[in-house]
């Protein structure tokens, strides 16, 4: 098996278009393919894939593989694992990239085990080793306290890539590429886990993941009531409220507000952290913010190592004055 070549990006489609994470994979995948002197391919699973295929070519894929099957259109994860196993066996890529989102964080490891190869989960940096030509994947470990660089000893080398760790590939409609249909055989019996219901929990206010400003609270708030104060500041700034995991686990606010490694990873322009100590687990979720502002009673708290501006003291006194001053300034 020495003939594996190229980088294969596993694409995802949302409303007929490429998911933003797929364009991020095409960007970093293009860089890796270039350093290997090999080609960039994308695979799309589902049905009605032609438009997304053209989009992948405009984002740099030299070849797009379309795997169409009714069971894939329904989004069964078991079916996707089986399909990707077959696609990898046919296309023989050297590297496979998958977005580490809701789907990819399960799909990646299961595919790797199915193929009997290794995987680096949650990569935030990727490069090719100059000598061995192996993929070097850098990933946060110990909740983000440390970084590990991992290589995979057999091919394909698979990495799931943290969303927003790389910029999305720019579209260039002049780029050319071929679209190829690949046959996949998926017996209905492979689908063992079924989604019997999808529940969308409606939330008031600005969507946390798309918000330009996020005002977040942590363990230091001491209870659920202060989140109303954060909500007031967030409304003033047209932003959303977030929370650290301890605040969610304590039941002060719903887990859907959780920012962090196992919560939401967000990239607002402004992140205001109130009563958050700044554990690495939490920082993993907000380190992509352009500016972090911290209010915390402990001047030694880790959050001040991440913040650009801060005030150390009692948030119960700092925050109302801060909010009032913001209200005046925005008049």
């Amino acid at each position: 098996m020495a003939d594996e070549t190229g980088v294969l990006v596993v694409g995802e489609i949302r409303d007929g278009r490429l998911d933003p994470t797929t364009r991020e994979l095409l960007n970093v995948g293009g860089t890796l393919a270039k350093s290997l002197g090999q080609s960039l391919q994308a695979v799309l699973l589902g049905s009605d894939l032609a438009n997304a295929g053209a989009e992948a070519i405009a984002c740099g894929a030299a070849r797009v593989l379309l795997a169409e099957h009714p069971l894939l259109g329904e989004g069964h994860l078991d079916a996707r694992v089986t399909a990707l196993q077959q696609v990898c066996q046919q296309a023989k890529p050297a590297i496979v990239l998958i977005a580490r989102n809701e789907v990819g964080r399960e799909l990646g490891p299961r595919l790797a085990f199915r193929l009997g190869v290794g995987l680096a989960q949650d990569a935030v940096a990727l490069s090719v080793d100059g000598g061995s030509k192996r993929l070097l994947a850098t990933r946060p470990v110990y909740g983000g306290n440390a970084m590990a660089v991992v290589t995979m000893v057999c091919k394909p080398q698979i990495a799931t890539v943290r969303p927003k760790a790389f910029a999305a590939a720019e579209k260039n409609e002049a780029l050319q590429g071929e679209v190829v249909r690949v046959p996949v055989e998926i017996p209905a019996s492979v689908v063992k886990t079924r989604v019997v219901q999808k529940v969308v929990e409606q939330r008031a206010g600005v969507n946390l993941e798309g918000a330009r400003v996020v005002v977040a609270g942590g363990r230091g708030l001491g209870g659920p009531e202060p989140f109303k104060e954060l909500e007031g500041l967030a409304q003033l700034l047209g932003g959303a409220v977030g929370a650290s995991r301890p605040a969610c686990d304590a039941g002060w606010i719903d887990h859907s507000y959780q920012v962090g490694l196992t919560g939401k990873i967000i990239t607002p322009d402004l992140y205001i952290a109130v009563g958050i100590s700044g554990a690495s687990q939490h920082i993993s979720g907000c380190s992509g913010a352009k500016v972090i502002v911290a209010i915390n009673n402990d001047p030694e708290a880790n959050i001040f190592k991440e913040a650009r501006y801060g005030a150390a003291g009692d948030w119960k006194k700092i925050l109302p004055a801060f909010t009032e001053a913001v209200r005046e300034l925005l008049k």
Partner: protein
Amino acid sequence: MGVRMILCAKQVLDPETPLSAFKVDRETKRAVPPPGADPVVNGFDENAMEAALQIKESAGGTITVISMGRSFVTDVITKPLAMGADDLVLLQDDAFDTTDSFVVASVLAAAIGKIGAFDLVLCGRQASDWDNAQVPLGLAELLGIPCLNLAKKVEVVNGCARIERITTDGHDVLEAPLPALITVTNELGEPRIPTIKGLMDAARKKPTVWGIGDLGLALSSLAKTEVVDLFIPAREKRCELISGEDDADAGRKLALKLREAKII
């Protein structure tokens, strides 16, 4: 007969270790625990244990805990027993000190094969040390059973495992026939605290200990990954701390500073 459950629990460095006390050894590529600090049971595995206990209470059954590592602190690794598990199997061997998910899942699969028939495997969504989130999913693949990932609620109904899986905007209800594997996330809720009686019961139970020789596995050819570096990223201190006459004044001046910097 109830639901025959297997719970995988890992002993990890306490994730509450302050960053200032967190050290790594770049040679061995391992974290170095602060002197005198005890490890803990991985928090997500405690959430999984809570899920197992809820199933045991509603549907009946047994919980066998398996833990894999090079060495264990007895008071730490027996915590699931004190919470209400029936048995503990320790997979203990120098060879089990690995960060390779394929090796870990293969050892766990071999141990589960040796334990015998089961209905449900429960695991935490990931371990708080290496955050791989691979072993449970890989274990389901190696065992050839369905996988239900990221559960915030678990049930066993009519020979099926049913979970609520967290999603970014709500949850999905998933179902799969037994035997199956479930990973549990912290949204399930706080795990129960062992009672005095639980602690006394646990102290009387003697764990089964298996080494590599008991499992009939050759680990040398199994690893699929190599760690080439482990380091603590440099953090530059560049925070501008705003002070004032008192805390309220600092709050006002912080707002003015943000306006000055054209941030608000």
